[in-house]
């Protein structure tokens, strides 16, 4: 499931066991929150879920300023200042949720993070479908030490559901798994369920 249908969006520029950062090739071209990514690493690609994105100045010492007061459109700001596209970078933060181990898909942290400059692709629907046959990885998202873990979890479920032919059945299965994970915290559970409701 690492065929040509996957769209390459960037490269790993910061790698840890549980998360990595992707420098996206296109400015403002971050993959959607909750989307499934694959960081190629030869025979053992790492799967990850987009947990956030940011677009910042390449040079930390240079802050963007408002330029468009006299422009008709946002596009015109970029056309008038073509250098801008070179001076910002869009990065996506990804939480590792599994990896390929020979023919098997594993739904827990990979033995090692992807390499710096590993190519990162957006998983095509069939790959998402295959990976989400098991929902064990949702525990990694539910327990991720990030402030927006609930939103990332819900966004991931919505993204995965869109890849399944029977979307409703998938949502039911994901809802049950979420209830199992968050059952002790009813408020959190309700928050997530509200956000994955069709």
């Amino acid at each position, binding site marked *: 499931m690492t065929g040509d249908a996957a769209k390459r969006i960037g490269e790993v520029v910061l790698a840890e066991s549980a998360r990595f950062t992707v420098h996206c090739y296109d400015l403002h071209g971050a993959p959607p929150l909750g989307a499934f990514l694959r960081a190629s690493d030869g025979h053992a690609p790492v799967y990850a879920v987009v947990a956030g994105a940011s677009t910042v100045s390449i040079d930390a010492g240079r802050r963007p300023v408002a330029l468009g007061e006299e422009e008709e459109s946002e596009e015109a700001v970029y056309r008038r200042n*073509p250098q801008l596209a070179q001076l910002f970078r869009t990065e996506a933060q990804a939480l590792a949720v599994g990896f390929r181990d020979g023919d098997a898909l594993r739904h827990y942290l990979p033995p090692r993070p992807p390499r710096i400059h590993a190519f990162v692709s957006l998983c095509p629907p069939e790959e998402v479908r295959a990976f989400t046959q098991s929902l064990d990885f949702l525990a990694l998202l539910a327990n991720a030490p990030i402030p927006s873990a609930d939103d990332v979890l819900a966004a991931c479920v919505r993204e995965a559901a869109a890849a399944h032919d029977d979307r409703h059945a998938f949502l039911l299965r994901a809802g049950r798994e979420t209830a199992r994970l968050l059952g002790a915290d009813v408020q959190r559970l309700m928050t997530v369920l509200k956000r994955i409701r069709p």
Partner: protein
Amino acid sequence: MGLDLSRAARDIDSMAGRLHDGAAAQAGRLTRARAVLQAQDARLDALREKVNRGGDRVTFLVAGLSDGLAARHPAPDAPSDYVALGADGSQIEADRHTPVACFLLNVGTVTLRYGDAPGATLDSVPLLLADAADLEVRDPSGSRSVRLDGPLLGVRRAIEEHRALLELARRAPPELPVVALLDGSLVLWTLSGQAYPDFVREALLDRALLPVLDEFAALARSRPLALASYISYPRSTDVVNTLRVAECPYEPPDCDRHCAGRGAFQRPCDSVGGVLDRDLFGGLLAPGERSALFDSASSIVRRYGRHAVRFFYLNVGDEIARVEMPQWAADSPRLVELAHSLALDQCKRGRGYPVALSESHEQAVVHEADREQFWRLVENALARRGLRAETSAKSTSKRTRWL
């Protein structure tokens, strides 16, 4: 304990007081300079003749008046599709504490395309100067040599900036008008005067910079290419010095004969003294307008031939800038219009300063951390080959501060 700012503050305050006391007199000299500018504009030929009669006896650098004095030219329309090029450099300089004699030049370059197909290419290219031929200028007909450091390294850097800019110009889409900008003066002031022997001028100017300018001129024959340098907040007084000649009561003007030994503001021509060209033209030019073209009278420029430097002042809105062009470009009304309109357009896009130059500076800049990293790379490379990187105790002490 480092700088005690509270002590310095007292001196700063008294400096501000002295400036305030002198402000009224300065304003009077500026008013006088503006009046002389207008009056002399009506009798340019007489002023030119007086300047010629003075010749080298006038010790100020006097702007050549081939194009008028108080003329104002409104901004031509800038083409909507054009290319702005910029090149700027910075350097890491060895000093006597560093382990190896070598220099690093870093030239930042920018190509900005505007109009229907906008785009940008930003780049920087480091150049390590470490061979004997790079580190000194040798007299080919003798055994003398001059170390290439300090100001001469600045000249070498300027040459590399010109070369980089020429490469950009060659690669620019041939159908579009191009403004190629450098930061600072086209005049290599370092080489004027007697500070360096003539073989240095021959090596760095005649055999290095001028051939690059020749190639620019050749390229400009086949495409609209305006080469210009841009000086923000210029401190030059070439035009005011011309007004000094107008104010001179002696005939012919002869500074050493008539005014030697007179103190500050004691000479008759000091009626316009202390005024900068930018102050003079600040009262004359409306936003967008440029002045007449003047000729630089620097002694080194006499070697430039057809690349002799001409300049105009330009009101870019926030300040009066100085734009210099080689003579072959300044002699072409079309290229002057391009330099005028596009320098202005670059300033509008760049919040008062040409974008092509601010971005090439950003590409070129070498931060303190880069500098330290560079020397660490040098030391590591030496160590890998079993060479000991000797450095002074003073340098080591600065890098490993201890208590």
